[in-house]
């Protein structure tokens, strides 16, 4: 299979997850986005479970918003926290990391390491001033196409409510 050309925002999909307890809302950036504004959500999907789950949602014709740009990773454990900050800095309005359920990891422990790292990251992003509801992690197995579709729908709605991501207030890279 021709390796997918990753990189750049044109060929990615996105997903969503449930918020933890309510957090102080991030105030809206100055300029109100247009009515038709669609959030960009970057989704790191683990190849063995969540990517397959997303595929099964597709083949089963489940309708869910196309806002998630999917980056396929071998395992949720492959996701380095700086990928997530980097995505936010370059315009992502939301980031999802989705992997196998703990215990089902193809590499047996990858998602356990990922869980510690990403639970810590979620609190740390909030500490740095990024609304934690913009970053979600979920466990979606290959057969849970419906769950993936629900997550995508929910997250897209929530991010749309939250408005554009932190890039506006961070500014340009140079």
């Amino acid at each position, binding site marked *: 299979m021709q390796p997918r050309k990753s*990189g*750049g925002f044109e060929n990615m999909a996105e997903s969503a997850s449930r918020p933890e307890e309510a957090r102080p809302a991030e105030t809206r950036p100055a300029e109100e986005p247009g009515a038709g504004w669609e959030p960009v959500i970057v989704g790191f999907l683990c190849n063995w479970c969540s990517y397959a789950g997303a595929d099964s949602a597709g083949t089963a014709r489940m309708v869910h918003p196309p806002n998630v740009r999917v980056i396929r990773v071998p395992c949720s454990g492959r996701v380095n926290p700086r990928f997530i900050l980097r995505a936010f800095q*370059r315009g992502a309005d939301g980031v999802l990391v989705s992997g196998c359920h703990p215990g089902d990891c193809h590499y047996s422990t990858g998602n356990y390491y990922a869980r510690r790292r990403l639970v810590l990251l979620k609190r740390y992003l909030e500490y740095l001033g990024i609304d934690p509801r913009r970053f979600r992690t979920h466990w979606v197995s290959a057969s849970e196409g419906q769950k993936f579709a629900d997550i995508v729908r929910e997250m897209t709605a929530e991010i749309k409510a939250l408005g554009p991501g932190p890039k506006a207030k961070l500014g340009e*890279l*140079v």
Partner: protein
Amino acid sequence: MGEGGKGMAPGPVPRTTKLVEASGLDGWLRAVAREARVWAPVKVDGRPPLFREFGAGEEDRLDLEAVRTVNSPKGALLPQTEPLMTYAMTKDAESGRPSLDLERAAPGGPVVVFGARPCDAAAFELLDKVFLTGDFVDDHYQARRAKTTVVAVACPRPDEACFCTSFGLSPGGTRGADVVLYGRSGPGVPVETVAYYAVAYTERGEAFLAAPAARAAGVADVPEDEGRCLEEVVSAFRGLGTPLGDRLGRIDVAARLDGLFDHPYWEKVSARCLSCGACTFICPTCYCFGVADCGALGKGVRYRYWDACKLPHFMLMAGGHNPRPAKSNRTRQRFMHKLNYYHHRYGEYQCVGCGRCVESCPVGLHLPLVAGEVGGLEG
């Protein structure tokens, strides 16, 4: 080589002299900041001031009490990140041939550097020698320099890290300054609370003191009877010594360093160096920079950024060769450049004795230490 220190030659002739209330300075700067980018020692509560942009709003306040700011005003002329150009790759609609439009970064507007100490002002002239002379003129720097007004404030109380007199400068020096403010109460006072004599030495300085913003802030003519008192105050500042400068005496080690390139001293003194860029980035005369691109999908910016000879990758070449792999090579380069190479090329030392490296080096490895120890070594 510049004036200053005890019994020095007479300085340049003042063009005009004004008086300004110490309390009027903040207001003056806020007015200037409305139509120029103002850099000044900005008050940071509980810590030494930083040389930053002074906004037109109410939040920034001037801090002239500290002897020096933590970082130098170099950023006003050589920003730590300076976009040079933007580029955009586009595909021509019908022919499909790639085309590239490239836009050079537009030069900025007027800049006022207010509250630099005489050492910082002199440092600008050392940077000018690099960027405005030689086979090429750096017109990025030149465009900014041509619109920069430097207003120095004479040093009322040099501290034990000051050694500008070791390089022929003085706490009341005028080199590199369009205007110099001398505290009316003369040296010795931690911060001038009464008023400043504002003496313009260049046309641009004169214009700055005559500008509407200045008049509105209460910059007024000096009453007749104060003429003599002005001379006394100015020469008092210019005759002021510096604690460390008096201890070190005049630094003139260029010739001695010629023979010390392979001396084991560099190995010994650099062992404790952290090989970081602190001393170079806060130094008013260090100017080394790198150039890099930042872009994706055919669009981007080329910018230059501060770099430091102390950083291990400074001279790393493609293929892995690094002419200065060890800390001793890099430490030698930093002090040889300031005390030998620059002297060979431009006839004076690349240091103004501001004392920032003395204050900021985490392991006490700085120019006065090396200049002093090198004096005692055999070639």
